């Protein structure tokens, strides 16, 4: 069974012939889908018709080359502000953040010397070398 399609819209607009109206009415009695579609069309139509009428400004009608379409300024402002804040954060954080962990030779030689003293391979030479590695005793 074929559905009514475009005939529904014409039916609502009162554009059908008596024979067509009769056929549509018979079809609607047996077809749930077309009934639902008709209800939706009718709801949409009444919603549109309930909107207030607005007068078009004369300048728009008379001088098409002077039409100004306003930008959604509020939305643009906040988006821009957020982007600017992010940029400022990145710059400030990059400046303030330490440039990595700063190590001195002692930071590594001291733990090495402490731990190696527990090893079976521990000898005076190792400790001496650790001491020298700090630079204090270098010749």
């Amino acid at each position: 069974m074929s559905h009514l399609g475009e005939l529904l819209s014409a039916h609502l607009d009162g554009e059908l012939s008596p024979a067509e109206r009769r056929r549509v009415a018979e079809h609607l009695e047996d077809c749930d889908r077309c009934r639902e579609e008709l209800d939706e069309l009718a709801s949409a139509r009444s919603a549109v018709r309930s909107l207030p009428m607005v007068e078009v400004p004369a300048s728009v009608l008379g001088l098409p080359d002077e039409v100004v379409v306003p930008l959604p300024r509020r939305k643009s402002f906040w988006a821009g502000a957020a982007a600017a804040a992010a940029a400022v954060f990145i710059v400030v954080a990059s400046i303030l953040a330490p440039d990595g962990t700063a190590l001195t030779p002692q930071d590594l030689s001291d733990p090495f010397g402490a731990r190696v003293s527990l090893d079976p391979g521990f000898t005076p030479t190792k400790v001496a070398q650790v001491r020298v590695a700090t630079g204090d005793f270098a010749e």
Partner: protein
Amino acid sequence: MRRFTFVAVLILLTPVITAADLSDYLERSATAEFQGDQIVTCSTPDGVRDAVLQIVGRDGALVVTSPVGDGRSLSAGAGSLAVAGPDGSVRSTQVASATDGPGPARYAIAAAIPGTYLGRIVETVVVERDGETRARMTFDVETGALLRSVVFQADERVYCDARMVTFDPSAPEVVAPGSDPDAVHVLESTQDFDLRALPDEVEGFVRLDQYRYDDSSVLAYYSDGFFAFTLLHSRRPVRLETSEALTRVDAGGGFYERIYGPGTALYVWESQLGGLAMFGDLPPDLQERVMAGLPEPGQPSFFIRWWRRLFG
């Protein structure tokens, strides 16, 4: 008679294959009591490095000073190392816990040769690692003290020669640096860090322990029973603050920065996994082999570097 003399001389000159283990020598040396002056000379890829030191061994600890230094002294033993400055300040590091190492089992004594050194009766042992001569160590027979240690590269070139030039088996009373509780850095063992940058084993060096270094860094300790190194891995980039000239070594997609001291090497580099720094007493050829098994130098992308810099 002539034949008997020949055999006797031959026996005296032939190195004695000893049944003693290297660990026996090293353990005895670690507790030896003595005092002496030592000269260290090392031929490194960055030139000759040398030093003169005064060493006292007593009560299982070693105190090292320098006749040419600024009055600083260092004491090490039993998992602790303290450095006293000329102004009386003391900086100490203590290891809270440690895993028993593999021992020097990887190393074998190829020969033990009796002789004399500085007027003392000594025994010189030749130490091999995987068939390569790695060290020749001269021990005082009476005290067990290590009087001379020559470390070799794999091609048998001398890397370092640390030799006592004076030796006295009577150790004086020494005052080891005290301890300032506010200046003690305690190395606590941790398992919380991402250890991907710290392999379990590399070139026969086993990761024995890992310690929390700071909030963004972990310090691992590796040993093959004789040589050892620490490897620091930081989630942040690392850089070295030193007045010494760094040698830049290009490798992989980046570079290492390196300082050789008399018997030690320090490397710092950036890798895809974060900042890394290594300090150890490996001969240069072993050092290179180990470095090849660690995360290679490379510059992470700008965003990753920026992120690590901010958040670690």
